């Protein structure tokens, strides 16, 4: 187990990067505590896999150091870093039984059979694999195989960190649920450092204590799920997290007050004097927009039923405002309505960043 420090890391796939765009991973500095559950979240091409490969040692960063518990590991090859990894597609040893699959990492390290047996059974029990220990691993379903991949990481007591690279991609939705909860439960039980890479916000937010959101090679925000939800530092975070994402509407700043569609909007942060070169926007999550008697007049264009709630899509001056209504709430069909924003959850953004 280890505390991980990514010290001033920067990476480019080019030989001599010069322009800012040459960097696949822009400069970042992150410190992760021992035993934490972390997620790297972002769309494909955002640099999250690059970062993962730097931590596991498959890639050497162009600049900066990877430090585990105070020891510089930057030059250490992957096999010597004591890392376990679960890949997108299950990696299992087809010809072996489930038992032998789980025992493999221990036997490779010359552990005596008695110890191997005790450890394998303990982990199999945690993963509900005890029943299938004697079966050929190749015959298992996708979620069973992913459990084996995970189990091979868990059996070793010397593992510094377990990394997950979009591990639920090939799993059916109803089993995704089960496996996700299993991961959470395991983390709560064994308290090993875990890093989870995904483009799926639900997976990231439910799994991790701390989520690092990446966009175009840059860390745009690192925070707890609640922070990311309630105080997005950047409109990208607001849009990417939450389904549907945060409403982002252009606004005007005039002597410390904020206006949208001619109406003054009360916000949780303020900008004293607007500058001409800056684009100002207000961000408000659909959860905090309410249909009301007074407020901003909008045209409702669509109401979609999402089961637990309904997504109401309204338009004002060509801008789309989405809001969530409860399953049983009264929602007018198409036509004119009024909405109001919860001031405590309305933020002003300047050039995309929280003002």
């Amino acid at each position: 187990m280890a505390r991980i420090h990514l010290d001033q890391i920067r990476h480019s796939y080019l030989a001599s990067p010069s322009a800012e765009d040459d960097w696949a991973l822009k400069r970042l500095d992150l410190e992760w505590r021992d035993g934490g559950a972390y997620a790297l979240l972002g769309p494909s091409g955002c640099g999250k896999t690059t970062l993962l490969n730097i931590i596991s040692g498959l890639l050497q960063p162009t600049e900066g150091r990877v430090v585990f518990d105070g020891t510089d590991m930057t030059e250490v090859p992957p096999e010597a870093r004591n890392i376990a990894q679960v890949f997108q597609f299950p990696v299992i040893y087809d010809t072996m039984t489930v038992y032998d699959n789980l025992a493999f990492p221990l036997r490779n390290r010359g552990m005596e059979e008695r110890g191997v047996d005790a450890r394998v059974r303990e982990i199999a029990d945690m993963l509900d694999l005890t029943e299938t220990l004697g079966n050929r691993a190749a015959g298992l379903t996708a979620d069973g195989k992913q459990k084996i991949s995970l189990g091979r990481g868990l059996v070793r007591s010397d593992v510094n960190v377990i990394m997950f690279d979009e591990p639920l991609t090939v799993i059916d939705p109803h089993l995704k649920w089960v496996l996700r909860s299993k991961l959470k439960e395991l983390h709560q039980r064994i308290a090993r450092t875990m890093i989870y890479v995904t483009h799926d916000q639900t997976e990231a937010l439910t799994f991790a204590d701390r989520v690092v959101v990446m966009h175009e090679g840059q860390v745009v925000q690192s925070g707890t799920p609640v922070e990311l939800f309630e105080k997005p530092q950047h409109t990208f975070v607001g849009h990417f997290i939450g389904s549907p994402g945060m409403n982002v509407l252009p606004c005007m700043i005039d002597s410390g007050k904020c206006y949208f569609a001619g109406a003054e909007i009360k916000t949780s942060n303020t900008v004293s004097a607007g500058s001409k070169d800056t684009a100002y926007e207000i961000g408000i999550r659909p959860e905090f927009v309410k249909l009301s008697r007074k407020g901003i007049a909008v045209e409702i264009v669509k109401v979609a039923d999402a089961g637990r709630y309904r997504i109401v899509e309204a338009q004002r001056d060509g801008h789309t405002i989405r809001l969530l209504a409860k399953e049983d709430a009264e929602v007018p069909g198409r036509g004119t309505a009024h909405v109001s924003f919860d001031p405590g959850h309305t933020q002003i953004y300047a050039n995309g960043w929280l003002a």
Partner: protein
Amino acid sequence: MALELRNVVKREGANTHIYETNLTLAEDGFNILLGTTLSGKTTLLQIMAGLELPSSGEIWFDGQNVTGEAVQKRNVSMVYQQFINYPHFTVFENIASPLRVAGEASDKIRSRVMQIADLLKLTPMLERNPSELSGGQQQRTALARALVKDADLVLLDEPLANLDFKLREELRDELPKLFAGRRCTVVYATTEPVEALLLGGHTATLHEGRVTQFGPTSEIYRNPKDLVSASVFSDPPINTATVTKRGDRFHLDEAISWAAPETQTGLADGSYRIGIRPHHIVPAGAGEGGAKLTGQVMITELSGSESVVHFQLGNHTWVSQSHGIHGHDVGEVAEFEMAVDHAFVFSEGGEVVAG
């Protein structure tokens, strides 16, 4: 242009892939086939397309029996989960390919392709090869190819499953708009209940080769006719338990019981199965009242905007899903409230008796 399956059965050796199915698809909006992997969605789509011949039964289209008619003769388009495009054709040529096969004039092809490309936001990449596109753009190209030829029947087999979360959201929003106003029957297979709800239209729930229910999507979601249909249409999985009704109360075991709501008081005493979706069970005080449940917390997942708590109820594991952050320690005994009027009551055989 209605597609109708009459007594369709598909057997392969001793296995039955599709049990006797009668289905008349809706001509407007999406027809969604909702079910887990291997529930028979793809087989059903292939039978509809004419790629597979049913073992018995007939397929009628537009008042004609088309069973056994070659696929080439039916005006069918299909889009798959994998992004399938001609790798050495440009995006333009990919989209144009069905029209070229049909021998259209080249200026007509040009205008049709431009029109569809505009609709799918592909205009800037018309001269590129598919390998230079992102996953979302590749799937848009495949969709454009399906749309360009004005097919009578468009079959979509989990077209969004391989896309990033946010791209999926975006394209899912656009899909119904793309088909609005076209004269064609659209069938859409998915494993995700929320996707079915948001696409609207009609839904057929599939389970192990049987269509368990078919009708307008919201109606199927809110009025499942049996436990199987309710389970297929629940994500997270629906909570179930066997209960005994004595007088005005349902008893889960000696310790846990609740008063039956008005709609269910008329049921005869005896044994029932109940099913209730996780969002109708919330931590005590967070909802609008309801039957009190007490259980030991096993896992908590906090996603920033909502809390998911797994707890032990009798010998069942139940899940509560609620808005806001409700922290619970693992192992703690917590109180929940259940909106009993949202519970479905099924006979022991699984048929709905109240809900």
